[in-house]
């Protein structure tokens, strides 16, 4: 469950209130923020709305959301340069390739732009961006797996469906799931990961169908850390009418629907809206020279939430609360402002 995160977040929130007043952005009109995901994906859709809202709330020079990177690091680098050429001077980026993105961040910083790594942090233990606001993909995968295992009653056979096998993020998701399974010390058996099934919905559907046809009886839980397999798994399990607990990540309408109708057990919702909204705000503070990071490259958890049938309608308010707390935390601990 998500209790720990919150209980962690709440006291800090309390403390900020006393420590220092909330930070107000004085002059945002010269700051143009570009929010650049790795490519088109349901996960990032809330960024659009957040972009509009932050532009309005903080009177920024402009906030643009551009998803034309098409999951190609080279394309994303070019896109960032183009945006810079168009006058954008603060960047919130989901790096296509976690192992390369630090290089990109470095280049952007060296050109004097404020940079935030949103929704995922660079691989390795350094972060060239000003800060990283995310729930790390590995952690999210870990939580999803745990949720599935709990639902399975702590034992049984678990399967992990995921995307492009040679992608670094996929490797981290696999690690996350493996970790959760290891913690059961053998009570839960993990079938070999089914990767490369996110290419298109049918590949995913086929993979799920074949899986259920071959192993359906023994499988107790499916955790999908990619979008299409999640949709396919929910539908597949429902069709096969097997008592398999499907846990997804992210909260695309399609997945929430599956949870409501019970074909999926749960999902690990993250906080893309908060990432974009708070991220833009912090970027504006940095780029307008009003503040600096106390500890450049710091990593902040943007929160993650277990969504089941029970809280499927309520979890979003909880999530907005968290976003607010993150903002306060920035003000209190992370930024030092003039």
């Amino acid at each position, binding site marked *: 469950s998500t209790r720990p995160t919150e209980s962690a977040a709440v006291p800090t929130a309390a403390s900020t209130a006393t420590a220092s007043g909330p930070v107000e952005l004085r002059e945002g009109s010269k700051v143009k923020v570009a929010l650049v995901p790795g490519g088109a994906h349901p996960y990032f859709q809330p960024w659009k709305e957040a972009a509009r809202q932050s532009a309005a709330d903080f009177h920024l020079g402009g906030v643009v959301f551009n998803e034309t990177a098409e999951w190609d690091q080279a394309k994303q680098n070019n896109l960032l340069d183009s945006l810079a050429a168009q006058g954008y001077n603060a960047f919130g980026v989901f790096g296509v390739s976690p192992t*390369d993105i630090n290089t990109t961040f470095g280049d952007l910083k060296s050109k004097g732009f404020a940079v935030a790594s949103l929704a995922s942090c660079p691989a390795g233990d350094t972060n060239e961006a000003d800060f990283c606001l995310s729930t790390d993909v590995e952690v999210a995968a870990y939580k999803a797996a745990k949720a599935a295992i709990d639902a399975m009653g702590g034992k049984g056979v678990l399967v992990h469906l995921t995307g492009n096998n040679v992608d670094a993020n996929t490797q981290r998701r696999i690690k996350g799931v493996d970790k959760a399974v290891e913690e059961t010390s053998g009570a839960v058996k993990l079938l070999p990961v089914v990767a490369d099934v996110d290419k298109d919905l049918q590949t995913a559907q086929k993979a799920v169908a074949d899986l259920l046809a071959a192993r359906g009886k023994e499988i107790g839980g499916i955790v999908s850390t990619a979008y299409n397999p999640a949709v396919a798994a929910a539908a597949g399990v429902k069709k096969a009418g097997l008592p398999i607990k499907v846990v997804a990540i992210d909260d695309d309408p399609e997945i929430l629907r599956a949870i409501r109708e019970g074909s999926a057990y749960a999902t690990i919702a993250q906080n893309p809206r908060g990432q974009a909204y708070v991220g833009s705000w912090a970027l504006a503070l940095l780029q307008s020279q009003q503040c600096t990071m106390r500890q450049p490259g710091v990593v902040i958890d943007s929160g993650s939430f277990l969504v089941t049938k029970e809280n499927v309608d309520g979890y979003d308010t909880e999530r907005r609360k968290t976003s607010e707390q993150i903002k306060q935390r920035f003000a209190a601990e992370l930024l030092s402002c003039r």
Partner: protein
Amino acid sequence: MGPRRHRQAADGVSTRKPLFGLLGLIVVLVVVFGTLSPAFFDERLVLFPLLRDIAIYTVVGLAQMVVLSIGHMNLAVGRMAAFSAMFMGLSYDRLHLPLYAGLCIGLLAGAAIGAFTGWIIARTGVNSFVVTLAMDFALLGLIPVVYTALTANAAFTVKPDGMRELRQYSLGDVCLGNVCGSPAVPQMMLLAVAPMLALGYLYHGTRPGRELLLTGSNPLAAELSGIPTRRRVVTAHLLSGLLAGLAGFMLAVATGSFRATIGEEFLLPSFLGAILGGTAMAGGVVSVIGTFLGTSLTLVIRRGLELVGIGLEYLNVYLGVILLLALSADRFLQRRGVKS
């Protein structure tokens, strides 16, 4: 093999390479985009990265061109790049070799895998399409195994000395006395120019090059004219692997790490660049400059649209439409030219 060749022989137009047309198109587009958004001429933020891309994808196109020249295809062009980049990463990460030593090792690996592919094709006489497709799958399986075994995130992140410089430096940084090159032209461009010159010479000036073309033009007649067609098949695929490797290196340097996903985006651009440039899929006709221009055309269009601020909703639509319009216009003018 007959059909396309007859078609070509039948009318001179289709065989003449549309180089000037392409050049014209590129100029026109640059002017248009430049006026729509003056930022287009920003040396540091636009021209430099654009030219760096052109350099990389020109090499990719050449890697496809050399096999097209014998009427074959290489569907594994991207995976061969990844394969050879893997060896480069290994030699930096494990052997701590300097940048160019690692490059050489990687290129050797690329050449080897290419030659092996060519050898299978020559031996079995099976369609290159199928063999390279199979090779692609095989490598697709092999590469992740190695990376997951040896690295944390499916990538070698060590940065040998000179890598950063190679990525960032332009001709502006090479000066004779106090005259310096243009800061808009990345030094990496040299890595593309070198193979362009080499291939240009190979095809126009040397025996093996011409023998490649004739093998593509009519394998049976080539065999009967004393050309070692099988050896040429191997040669072509070897070169393809080598160039793919070079492209992989350039991409890795440009983005930052030697990773398993290198080259995933290479396949279609490799054909597009070469064929736009006037290289015939049926073999026997190549154009090195054309490959460069064809690659430039597509990248200029994309970059221009980006700068004008086209979102994903329209980007691809415009990309395709502009490409079609531009080429149709070009063809139309060409035919007018021939008539008069």
